[in-house]
């Protein structure tokens, strides 16, 4: 019993004290292990499935799916040609915004589970703003110069307000932000569906689909095929935002205050940090970032608002946790999720592997890569509360 506890403490200790380089190595190793386990899953599923021509037969056993081919197709589907790479990066871009939307409040000790709602309302605001603004702006280059900022600002502003709301409730009435942000997601979707249905529906289409935004507001592709709906400029903008927030958190006084509040609220108050400011600021900023993500989704990907937004807000939480909530680490983390998204689709369509199995393969990679990070978070919390001592230390 005691040996086990000691071993667990030691494990937490090792994980908590890992350097960045060691963590990256560990993550890479985890991907390899996940691929190994995934291959066994594919073999098993392929053995159980029935198909006309087996993809692999060994010692008289017939398998419907070839594990090596599967992962090859996954890689190809994610990075194989410029179109596929564009789809990967398109997902990555959206996840960078929503991931950041989780990471910033996390640094202030707040859990923003509401990126999805902020994303949805942001995308709705962008759509509405563009549909309205299109009527009074000229077409052509001038229109583009007006409409692109209008779209982004509208998404950011509404997303920001939708983040400010749970921040204010938390500060003023001590409403737990996990619950409020989670519930606000449903409200956001409901508001969006009703609004689009009633006022902005495209009369020629069935279902809850808005009219198309003006072409001047579309963030069109550069270097990549236009059908991929991926703009390198937007990607660069997202990277700039990441870098900006990294700088803000590590080097600015506000960032210092946010981190202090998130790490030890009592010490923050001692140091003259305003709890009100850090709470409202970080939640609003989170909403702005997610809302801009929603704007990008409309202006770069869809071109109109429609129901069934992808769960990028929720995936953003996983992306951020995997990145240890470090803005810079969001890039590799977001790339992994983006690649799994596009590569997963390729496996499904090219090899006919059921989407459930594809989900398992994606889940394995995320699970194995994220587990050490999750334990690190968990271990840090335990250590902070004094429930474990992970470092012998000196007197």
């Amino acid at each position, binding site marked *: 019993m005691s040996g086990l506890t000691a071993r667990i403490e030691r494990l937490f200790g090792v994980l908590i004290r890992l350097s960045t380089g060691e963590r990256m190595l560990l993550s890479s190793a985890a991907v390899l292990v996940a691929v190994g386990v995934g291959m066994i899953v594919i073999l098993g599923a392929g053995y159980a499935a029935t198909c006309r021509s087996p993809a692999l037969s060994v010692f008289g056993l017939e398998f419907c799916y070839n594990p090596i081919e599967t992962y090859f197709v996954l890689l190809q589907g994610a990075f194989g040609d410029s179109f596929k790479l564009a789809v990967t990066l398109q997902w990555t871009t959206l996840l960078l915004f929503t991931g950041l939307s989780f990471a910033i409040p996390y640094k202030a000790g707040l859990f923003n589970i509401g990126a999805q709602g902020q994303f949805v309302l942001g995308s709705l605001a962008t759509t509405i703003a563009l549909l309205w603004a299109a009527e009074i702006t000229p077409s052509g280059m001038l229109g583009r110069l007006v409409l692109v900022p209008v779209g982004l600002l509208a998404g950011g502003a509404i997303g920001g307000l939708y983040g400010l709301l749970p921040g204010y409730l938390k500060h003023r009435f001590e409403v737990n932000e996990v619950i409020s942000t989670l519930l606000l997601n449903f409200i956001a979707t409901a508001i969006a569906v009703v609004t689009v249905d009633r006022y902005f529906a495209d009369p020629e289409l069935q279902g809850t689909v808005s009219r198309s935004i003006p072409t001047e507001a579309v963030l069109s592709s550069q270097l990549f095929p236009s059908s991929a709906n991926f703009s390198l400029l937007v990607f660069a903008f997202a990277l700039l935002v990441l870098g900006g927030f990294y700088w803000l958190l590590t080097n600015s006084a506000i960032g210092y205050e946010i981190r202090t509040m998130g790490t030890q609220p*009592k*010490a923050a108050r001692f140091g*003259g940090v305003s709890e009100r400011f850090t709470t409202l600021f970080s939640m609003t900023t989170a909403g702005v970032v997610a809302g801009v993500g929603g704007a990008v989704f409309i202006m770069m990907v869809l071109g109109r608002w429609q129901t069934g937004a992808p769960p990028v807000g929720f995936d953003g939480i996983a992306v951020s946790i995997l990145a240890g909530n470090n803005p810079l680490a969001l890039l590799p983390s977001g790339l992994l999720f983006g690649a799994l998204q596009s590569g997963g689709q390729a496996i499904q369509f090219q090899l006919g592997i059921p989407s459930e199995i594809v989900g398992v393969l994606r889940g394995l990679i995320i699970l194995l890569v994220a587990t050490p990070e999750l334990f690190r978070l968990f271990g840090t919390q335990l250590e902070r509360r004094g429930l474990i001592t992970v470092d012998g230390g000196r007197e």
Partner: protein
Amino acid sequence: MSVAVQLQGITKRFPGGVVANDDIDLEIEQGSVHVLLGENGAGKTTLMNVLYGLYEPTAGTVHINDEPVSFETPQDAITHGVGMIHQHFTLVDPMTMLENIALGWEPVRYGGLAVDTDAIETEIRDLSDRYGFDIAEHMHTPVEQLSVGAQQRVEVVKTLYRGADIFIFDEPTSVLTPQEADQLFDVFSELTAQGKTIIFISHKLDEVLAAADRITVLRDGRKIDTLDAEGATQDQLASKMVGRDVLLSADKQSVDRGEPLLSVADCSVDDDHGMRKVDGIDLTVHEGEIFGIAGVDGNGQTELVEAITGLRSQTAGTVSIRGTDVSERSRRERIEMGLSYIPGERQEQALVLDFSLTQNAVLGSQHHDQFRHGRGIDWAAVREHTDRIIETYDVRPPDPTANARSLSGGNQQKFVVGREFLRDPDLVIAAHPTRGVDVGSMEFIHEQLLALCEQGVAVLLVSASLDEVTSLSDRIGVMHDGSFVDVVKPESVTKDQLGLLMAGESLDREATARSQ
């Protein structure tokens, strides 16, 4: 008397070459109180962690009751009757006293389906009767609702419950009021009377002399001497600890006091539960003056200090700095007006434990121009400032990248004091500034406090140590139940008189009582 613990040639070398214990021999008699005395970092705790099975010694042997032992975990130590009570308690706050005591050692019934709480309760009553602890009434109280002293007794009962014969106390009084410390020493007597052995880690000379039978002095990881407490003096012990002669009481020069700097008028403050803790306090501290507040902990000192520093709002009255009413000003604005604050709760308030010393050095000054570079914080300047704090206040290890958590309590305190004093303050509010620091550092902190005073800084000093208050202060306000019983000059009262004032009695009544 037989020997309960024998350590022979214990050496503990940490990876990186730090030798915390260097060939230490130690014999501890059964039924005695043996003190390990030494400055922060002398190797006391490391030595006890070796005995308790937390560390494996690099060399040397441990004998318990003449039997050679080698503990791999604290569990092994406990089965051999060795229990340790840490400086920071290992209690689960929301759980009741009974649950805490039995945790991990629960007797079960119904074939292991349920915990036999009746058996635990009987056992605890039995133990507390035998040793005269008055804690049985709190059996079902969550420990977070108990006072610190009571929590410590819960730790003692927990250790007894696990069958310990040898008790290691790591700086047990650092969290206690003087009264609670006295109660703890009574507990020591009860325990030794029943044949238990006590090892007691400390760096406080007065309590060592009060509680110990024998004293072993450690310095820089080596054993300097073992001597009987009887006949030992504070000066003698201090010079063995530090390795040179130490000035135990501060040498105060009188400073001409200047303009009033801090004025508190008719100030009342409530605590978190809405209880009135400070009731109509008036006080003024002038430039170059040290105003001491003496009183038993919990008589409103914390709330008063928090109202002055801007961490708590007062329900009535005003706080003014240099004549400006700052009652409605934020904590940040007050810091910017030149207020430095050394809080009593250094680990919770004054330091972000998971931040490096460098990051901690800027806490409170994060908006100050001195540390601004463009739109961000000038980390290079902060780093230089950190080095200055570390060097001036002898913070060990002298590593600005070390996490605050990894420092010992005394070094954390030195760092906090250094940061607050080097901020170039006009007004210093110091609550227990030398709590937990060793004799050498205490001397230095006192010198610095007096030096600030000579530069015209106003100081409000709250301390549980009467020696500290009387030797440093120009005037002493004695606080009882939220108000000043009296404001006296330190040279005009004796310690006994101060003690009476702290209990809420007035001096003339005592004088008349004596004359009768």
